[in-house]
């Protein structure tokens, strides 16, 4: 099955990013294809490479990069939401793509499922 993910909150402040990640890993383990992760609202904050949490904690943006490389999944961030929230190409992680809502429309329509995580 092809599954798209919509993530609407930033890292650390809400659990949404962690749940999305754990769900995506489990879906892939069950043989599904995660087609794309799309970030909206504060969700775009997930793809900043400047993230530098305490060493004993998870690094959420690095984790998305590894996820992206391991499974060939792009992490898309809405461009308008990104510009509001100080995310641009200079701070973008590997695997991150800043794009328009047309991309999201395509993700929402071509997948068998869309699962949303947020606050």
């Amino acid at each position, binding site marked *: 099955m092809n599954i798209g993910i919509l993530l609407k909150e930033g890292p650390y402040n809400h659990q949404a990013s962690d749940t999305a990640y754990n769900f995506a890993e*489990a*879906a892939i383990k069950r043989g599904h294809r995660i087609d794309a992760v799309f970030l909206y609202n504060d969700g775009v904050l997930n793809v900043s490479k400047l993230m530098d949490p305490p060493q004993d904690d998870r690094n959420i943006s690095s984790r998305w990069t590894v996820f992206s490389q391991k499974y060939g999944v792009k992490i898309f961030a809405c461009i308008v939401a990104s510009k509001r929230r100080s995310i641009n190409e200079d701070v973008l992680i590997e695997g991150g793509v800043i794009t328009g809502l047309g991309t999201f429309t395509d993700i929402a329509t071509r997948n068998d499922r869309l699962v949303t995580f947020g606050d």
Partner: protein
Amino acid sequence: MLHTVNKSPFGNDTLETCIRFALPGDPILLIEDGVYAVQGGNRFASMIETILKKNPVFALQPDLSARGISVITNGVTTVDYEGFVELVEQHHVNSWL
């Protein structure tokens, strides 16, 4: 249709709102702080029992464990992330935020 709820029922009416729109038979999956709704012995036990007459109720085990909830309301099914995925295989998803 699978409905997910991620808010504690204390102080937030997302679960109540979800229930008002869910059709009979639609599964309800509680995740994140939403799992507090099925903590055995709390104020929402009877509400969950009422919901169970119309809708199967699931709760995400990793979220229950993270919150130290070992006793849950009778009739609620626990699932791990794999079980969450199985529910998504069977249903379109309505994520109540």
